[in-house]
């Protein structure tokens, strides 16, 4: 058997050379562009060892294993060399096992080599802290990658029997995972990427053992099926057609099944979500620059919106210095669970059920219209720097819409919430200009109200013209693309003769002044948090107590201050947001769950019941929040990491 494996290994040498060349090139780039003795374990691991998992990095490993798997059997059959092997006094099973073993050993060898070189390079860092090496993590990553290679190799051996169609099937599988992550928030154990998800207890890497065991067992089954298929397949020289009738039939069936699978996923989605109004109830109203489509039952509200639309647009145009106002199509008949309004280029979609008051609907139209003007005036440049300017896109739309359609109470409420978040969570401009990081640490919705206030400071510092000038400067001919966020801001504000630092100073003053006016009793803090999984109900129970927070100069840490005698105003609603368990294969939304008050008097607590499926393993991210009234935005505390304690009984 060993000689057979060695023979197969020799057969795989070209592939081995290819992977070695790839590896070598990678190291060459590293050697030519980095000072290797400054590499820390953390920087080496970045992107691969982070919490959760990174599908983008894993795809490379998948490709590596699939290409190796595809080089095992198809070519032997196409070139009929399999006939020579079968003529040897060796069982077909041994032949099959030898090929798999050789391929797996090759992939393991590549992994071992790569990890060993990395270990040697990391050892060259002499720093007392940065030079620490984490053997447990290194070993765990190595064996996990080897097992992952085996699993994908098994997939590949089976898929390679279907040749190109096999890749189509795998493509559909990946598509299905993306759908699941987009709409269900997770693809669970179905995803091969869950095999590479990371969780840590201190510095100890905890692999997803359950998923690895399930997929390893499935991989063995796949190998058995693959063995039976390949074993019964004759070579092309043995009289077998390259595409015999039964294979063609199978291809046809699988093609249809592939499309059917996709169709089923989509059909399932059709039954979920929100709907639109039936067309025969829709009416059209037009002004000089708008074309509205609306449900006839909302005639009164729409009349109000339409009556003010042109004057509001004109005011917005003046604020932004727009010479030529675009024609905009507005769909007022949409319904959405996620947004009161959406805008894309010159089209707006609004959900008239999002707000109760007519003036709020009118303001939403102004908000969305601002987005249209932003896109047109900047020639879509803001969207290209989305991460750096998201807060400004939303903030400017908030600012202009509130300026044109005043809603003093709502705006003040938003501002109060923003100032409390700003102060307690210490949010700075550098946080604002990194939208993904901001969402990881704070409530992403704060971009609206904090952005509104930042825009106010911007206008007060640089003048009203600065808003439109900024848009045009961002979209100017010759503007450098993909600048780092901080440089983009400095570069663009310099173009309009406005100093970013001055704006930020004024923004700080504005936030502090607002914060000083807020009644702190409206913003208590969560404390005494417990997290328990109840396996009998399939739920995780998260319970917390509220406490007043009397902010003094000496205490800037909400978790550390405790004034049990102080009063607080009981919020109206409670909420918890759970960090999505997706493998980042597709964008997904963090699920939220409402909480309720339980107990009385001093024993009063807020309890959240979260389905078990929302949390993978025992560690997860969560964000607690509340709102003072049904019509106000939720105030969220910072994200925290939680650990689930097991409990089988009732709470």
């Amino acid at each position, binding site marked *: 058997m060993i000689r057979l494996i060695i023979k197969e290994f020799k057969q795989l040498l070209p592939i081995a050379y290819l992977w070695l060349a790839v590896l070598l090139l990678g190291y060459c780039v590293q050697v030519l562009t980095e000072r290797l003795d400054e590499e820390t374990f953390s920087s080496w691991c970045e992107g691969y060892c982070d919490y959760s998992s990174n599908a983008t990095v894993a795809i490379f490993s998948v490709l590596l294993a699939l290409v190796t798997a595809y080089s095992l059997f198809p070519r032997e059959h196409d070139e009929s060399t399999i006939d020579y092997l079968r003529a040897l006094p060796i069982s077909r099973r041994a032949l099959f096992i030898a090929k798999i073993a050789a391929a797996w050993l090759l992939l393991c060898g590549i992994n071992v080599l790569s990890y060993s070189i990395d270990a040697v390079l990391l050892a060259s860092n002499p720093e007392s802290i940065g030079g620490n090496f984490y053997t447990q993590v290194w070993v765990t990553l190595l064996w996990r990658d080897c097992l992952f290679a085996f699993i994908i190799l098994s997939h590949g051996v089976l898929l390679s029997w279907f040749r190109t169609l096999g890749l189509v099937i795998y493509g559909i599988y990946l598509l299905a995972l993306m759908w699941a992550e987009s709409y269900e928030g997770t693809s669970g154990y179905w995803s091969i990427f869950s095999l590479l998800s990371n969780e840590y207890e201190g*510095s100890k890497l905890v692999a997803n053992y359950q998923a690895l065991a399930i997929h390893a067992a499935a991989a063995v089954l796949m190998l058995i099926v693959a063995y039976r298929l390949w074993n019964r397949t004759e070579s092309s020289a043995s009289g077998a057609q390259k595409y015999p009738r039964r294979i063609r039939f199978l291809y046809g069936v699988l093609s249809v099944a592939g499309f059917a699978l996709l169709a089923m996923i989509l059909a399932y989605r059709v039954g979920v979500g929100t709907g639109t109004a039936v067309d025969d109830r829709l009416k059209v109203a037009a002004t000089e620059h708008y074309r509205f489509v609306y449900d006839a039952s909302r005639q009164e509200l729409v009349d109000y919106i339409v009556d003010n639309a042109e004057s509001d647009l004109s005011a917005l145009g003046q604020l932004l210095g727009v010479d030529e106002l675009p024609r905009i199509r507005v769909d007022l008949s949409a319904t959405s669970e996620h947004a009161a309004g959406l805008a894309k280029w010159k089209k707006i979609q609004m959900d008239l059920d999002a707000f109760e008051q007519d003036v709020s609907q009118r303001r939403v139209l102004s908000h969305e219209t601002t987005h249209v003007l932003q896109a047109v005036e900047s020639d879509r440049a803001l969207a290209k720097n989305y991460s750096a300017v998201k807060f400004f896109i939303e903030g400017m739309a908030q600012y202009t819409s509130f300026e044109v359609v005043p809603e003093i109470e709502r705006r003040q409420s938003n501002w109060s919430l923003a100032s409390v978040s700003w102060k307690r969570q210490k949010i700075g401009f550098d946080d604002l200009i990194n939208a993904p990081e901001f969402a990881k640490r704070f409530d992403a919705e704060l971009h609206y109200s904090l952005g509104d206030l930042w825009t106010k400071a911007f206008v007060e510092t640089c003048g009203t013209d600065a808003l439109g000038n900024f848009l045009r400067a961002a979209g100017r001919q010759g503007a450098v693309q993909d600048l780092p966020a901080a440089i983009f801001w400095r570069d663009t504000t310099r173009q309009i003769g406005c100093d970013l630092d001055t704006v930020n100073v004024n923004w700080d003053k504005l936030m502090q002044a607002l914060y000083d006016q807020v009644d702190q009793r409206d913003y208590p803090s969560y404390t005494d948090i417990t997290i328990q999984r109840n396996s009998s109900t399939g739920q995780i129970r998260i319970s917390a107590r509220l406490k007043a927070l009397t902010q003094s100069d000496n205490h800037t840490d909400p978790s550390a201050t405790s004034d049990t005698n102080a009063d607080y105003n009981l919020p109206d609603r409670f909420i918890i947001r759970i960090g999505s368990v997706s493998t980042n294969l597709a964008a997904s939304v963090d699920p939220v769950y409402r909480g309720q008050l339980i107990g009385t008097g001093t024993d009063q607590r807020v309890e959240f019941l979260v389905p078990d499926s929302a949390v993978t393993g025992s560690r997860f991210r969560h964000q607690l929040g509340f709102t003072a009234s049904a019509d106000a935005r939720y105030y969220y505390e910072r994200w925290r*990491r939680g650990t689930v304690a097991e409990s089988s009984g009732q709470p």
Partner: protein
Amino acid sequence: MATVALLVKDLREHRTAALLLALGCLAVVLLLLAQNAQSAYSMSAFEIVRFALLSFLPLVALIIGNRLIVREYLSGTRLYVEALPIGSTLPLVLKYLLGLLYLSFLSVAMVLLAANQSGIADDVTRNYTLLILGKTWVMTILYWSVVFCFSLCGYLRIALYLVSAALVALLAYYPGIDADRFPPFALMDDQLFVFERDSVPWFDIGGTLLISLVFTLTGFLLTRVGEGSVVERLAKPMTRRDFVALGVLAFAGLALWSALLENKQREPVEFSSQQVVRLNDPSVAVLYLDDAYKESAQIIATRTHDSLTKLQATLGLAQLPRVKLALIPSREKHDIDYATADGVLISANWLEHDSYDDAILDSVLMHGVLSSQTGGRAMFEPYHWVLDGFTRWWVEQGDQQLDSQHAAELLARALWVIDRQPLAHDLVQRWQLTADQFSYPSAEALAWSAMTYLEHSQGRDRVIALALEFLTQPIGSSLLSTIQDRRESVQLRVERVIGMELNEFYRQWKQWLEEQRADKFVQSLRDTIPALAGRVDSDTDASGVHRLQASYVAISPATTDPAIAPGQCIMKHDYLGPFDTEFEVTDDYEDISDCTIGEAVHVVNSVYSPGDRVFIALDYENDVFHQPLRLHAERLTIQ
């Protein structure tokens, strides 16, 4: 007649596959449309057309190309067709038209299905439909032309597809290339493809058609070159070596691309305000925001400029990075932001600074300048003490007379560090640990005292020589540079400069430091530091609530008074990643309290949970020292 016969032959051969493929495609489009109608963020049914053009229509084109052209060329059956008395061009033209017709049918069907699905809100007019139809058809022609051309390249086509994909990715994602401004990318713009209905993108349509024409002609030319011998050669199977070579080529391209991305240069960004004091050679700009602060800005600009000029002359530096200082009056006086991505940019509030605070700010600035000078290498642990020590030394006494009060505070701090951690004298090998345990101001004071002793014992020139050895040469970002930099050990390099063994230097320096204890200023300052040690307990109670508690214990038997120190004790804490790196805890999470002994002074409730790694620092602040003293620091894994 021959035309009809050839068409019938292809139709008969591919009818089942074509039918299944078309039905499958249309089924997917119908379901996507249904899904789109219900989706919360969808705004038009025509978005599906764009999605299809970007996702599965290229794949469909590939399948068609494979069936119509590739199979025939690779299996050699085209030779039978070419043997017919109809020439070699006609069959190829028919194949081209047949493929285009099929794909056009699918595209038109997609657009019409989307138009049919659109509601009154989409305002689907004839012109709008024609516009979408036109863009879709032009893209379809492009796809088919590319597939047609590459399909004639036999086994090489896979490599060509990969290279094309890489090229498309390069154009789409390479910084500095705005792909949305030229065809065919501009035609497929995320916003304009569906939602721009007022203008026809003639330039983009024309450009895309031109690219299609080039590919089509190339395909036809390929079959004519050498009477088809090139196509014949390409149709031969590729060896594994070919694949390996192509793979290496592809990854080399990828590596080159990565390197290009890394090395992208850009112009530095300057302050644009009128309220800026600017001095040149070396370039110093100070933004002061308000005329009331102009004088202060002029003072700091002049001071910085003078210091930099002297530093440049002393160290023989050809060029210095541009230095920018932004005054942020709302900041606390020691809250200094520092960035070196674009010259050296410092944001701080120096309005209430005394001379010691100014020295802190100037040290940070010089730190940035010399760090930039070495390409960041000066921050490497074995050299970091030289950077910190020399910059503070330069600011304090490099170009002026040393202030005795500054010296006393720095010495008291350095002595306190050595008292608490006798191993802290190992500047080369323990710098990160010392900074971690005692914070950077204390580590800097320690390094400054070493430089001061060096000056005291061997003269100013030796200090300058040490800086010249470690802080003036730009170190490249490559292994070769690293090897060159480390071919001689740091210890030997230091010993060569100071002219004695490092351990002997440590011994003499510590002895000198001990002697400074006798100085009454130093002693009085040292006495204000309480003999306290911090302690952190992590505990989860029976109900599952986690608490982190910090308390203080006396490390001297004489210290029994609960309110031992007149200053304040501050707990700072934050999440750490799973792996250790240098970490400077901010005041994002901090709790300030009186320093009492025995009881839990700081309690952090429910912020952390078992498995988290946390950095906890317990600092002491009083009116005597300008910056906090770190009584305790810990990297804790919550159990």
